[in-house]
């Protein structure tokens, strides 16, 4: 049974249901918080750390997508500290794998690229890792390019929660974490994949794409993904 909570976000008094997250209350009130791993209709996991916000009385930053509202919270969603933090998160996404926007299928329709642009990320200060990661093109219709994966886990969740197939998992830890199909068999040999394409539709970057798609060729628009995944936005 949810109850009404009142809190302050960016100096504004807002009301929320007790089972809501900070992210959903903020967005309901027109307060923008950037996200990458969040997708309406899927369980939030707080993976990308882009939605971090400041909470009065707490030294730690909190991920808005998995923090439930509490009575009397005073939250700041945008500050120099948060912008710097978010820029650094985006920078590390780029540098952890091999993101080459100019020759990427997702160029100009990539959420990572858009986030970098929105945050005015103009250059990298850290050194790139340049990992040697493979492209899995064994599937008849789709391709997995690990070079472009940011481990947001949207594909894992949409396949598990909506399609019910649970083809995808993330194996390994830290910089060695990799998206794997069927516990590490090539995608084309997967016995669980239904070839529904939901993972491709929800991928925010060029990590999962339709075979034969060329560079900078847009895929279907994503605003309708909530319908695709079968949930409806809150009123």
């Amino acid at each position: 049974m949810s109850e009404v909570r009142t809190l302050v976000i960016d100096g504004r008094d807002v009301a929320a249901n007790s089972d809501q997250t900070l992210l959903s209350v903020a967005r309901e009130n027109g307060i923008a918080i950037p996200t990458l791993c969040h997708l309406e209709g899927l369980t939030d996991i707080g993976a990308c750390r882009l939605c971090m916000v400041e909470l009065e009385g707490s030294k730690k930053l909190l991920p808005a997508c998995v923090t439930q509202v509490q009575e009397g919270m005073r939250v700041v969603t945008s500050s120099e500290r948060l912008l710097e933090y978010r820029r650094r998160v985006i920078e590390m996404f780029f540098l952890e794998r091999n993101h080459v926007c100019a020759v990427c299928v997702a160029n100009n329709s990539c959420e990572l690229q858009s986030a970098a642009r929105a945050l005015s990320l103009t250059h990298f200060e850290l050194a790139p890792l340049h990992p040697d990661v493979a492209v899995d093109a064994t599937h008849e219709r789709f391709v997995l390019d690990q070079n472009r994966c940011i481990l947001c886990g949207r594909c894992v969740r949409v396949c598990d929660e909506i399609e019910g197939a649970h083809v995808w998992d993330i194996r390994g830890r830290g910089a060695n974490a990799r998206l794997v199909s069927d516990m590490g068999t090539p995608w084309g040999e997967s016995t669980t994949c239904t070839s529904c394409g939901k993972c491709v539709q929800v991928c925010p970057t060029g990590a999962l794409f339709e075979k034969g798609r060329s560079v900078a060729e847009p895929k279907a628009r994503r605003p309708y993904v909530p319908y695709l995944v079968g949930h409806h936005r809150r009123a």
Partner: protein
Amino acid sequence: MSEIIIEPVTRIEGHAKITIFLDDAGEVRDAHFHVTQVRGFERIAQGRPVHEMPSLMARICGICPVSHLVASAKACDEVLGVSVPPVAVRLRRVINLAQIVQSHALSFFHLSSPDLLLGFDSDPAARNITGVAEHAPELARDGIALRKFGQQIIERLGGKRVHPAWVVPGGVSAPLQPDQRDAILATIPDARARAIRALNWFKANLADWAEEAARFGSFPSLYMGLVHETGNAAYSDGELRIVDQRGKRLLDGGDPKRYEEYFGESVEPWSYLKSTYYKPMGYPEGIYRVGPLARLNVVDQLGTEAADQELAEYRARLGRYPNSSFHYHWARLIEIVHCIDMVEELLADPDILGSDVRARAAINRTEGVGVSEAPRGTLFHHYKVDQDGIVQWVNLVIATGHNNLAMNRSVAQVAKHYVKGADVREGALNRVEAVIRTYDPCLSCSTHAVGQMPMEVDIVDPDGAVVRRLSRDGG
């Protein structure tokens, strides 16, 4: 033995240096043209999905990305095993012709006209396109306008001027819209008038450059280019033809897919650029040239009226098979006229607006060869992929590689005539660079179009000590 080193070579596309070797008597013994950069695109492509190749390979160059797009897409067509829809074949031709116009304009007006207009011995500080603009504003404006003409067509077709992603495996990604076609057609008369005006200026002044024309890479060689079945010039399709200096056809109707049978590649320790040669004649006797001079030599006719009139005059004045690389300039200007004519001809056909522009298929073959004529000569892309379409192996044979042996011989010829001993004039060294510019070598994508890089000439004695250093700031 002493050496004279010109590094970097200016007003060319990419990085290079020239070494001139002197014997004990101070006479030029030999000269080498070195390409000092390594790019590694053949390696970078390994492991990538083949559909990415056109755009990835186009990044080799910012001047002639379209030629790479076309050659690459054709190699991918082979891998897919598709027949490209006829409308797409013609649209690919239009965008490649547009690129030849803009690249030729850059080569002639921005990079070479300063030498021709202001003189090979003129002040290097003013010997550039801004110097041209001061002394002959109309010539400079024509060059800039022709470059814009080509770039705008590329943008109207492909969405952007440099590195459009529009040419894709199986065709092109979107059909041509009527308003875009009309906008392009509206720019044709102005471009043609400018090209003819520049051509007339060049022809009127040809006698002034008689000495350079006689010594700028003037030697017999073979010539290679793509030719349609009709004997017309081909830029995006066609078959290979190789003729010798007397016009004997050593290869006719050559299948571009069999390029490895026709050409060998040799590697020299002093350059990153491989030298190709015509295999049946061996190395280095199989020396051949590609690009505008060679294309005009191999074709029976260009195939459009205005250009063929110019071609007739060119052949009447220079002979049927001109063999001086200096005449690349004239050939280049005639090709600009021809490419403008061809763009108009292709767009005048209402079928060009057809919507069937892309064939789609899975991976049906594991190997493909694609060919196109880049502005500076014939370009081959050769890929091997696995059954999933992941690139395993790439071989690129670029125009400047075909011309490498000829460029080296040309540099030596010019140096032997103009350089005597270590006490050498700047104008003489400029001629050594200028002969390289006739080939419009594309050493990569970086362009020092206004020639602001300093040039250093080191004269080195037999013990390796620098006995004299000449330098200039900008040129």
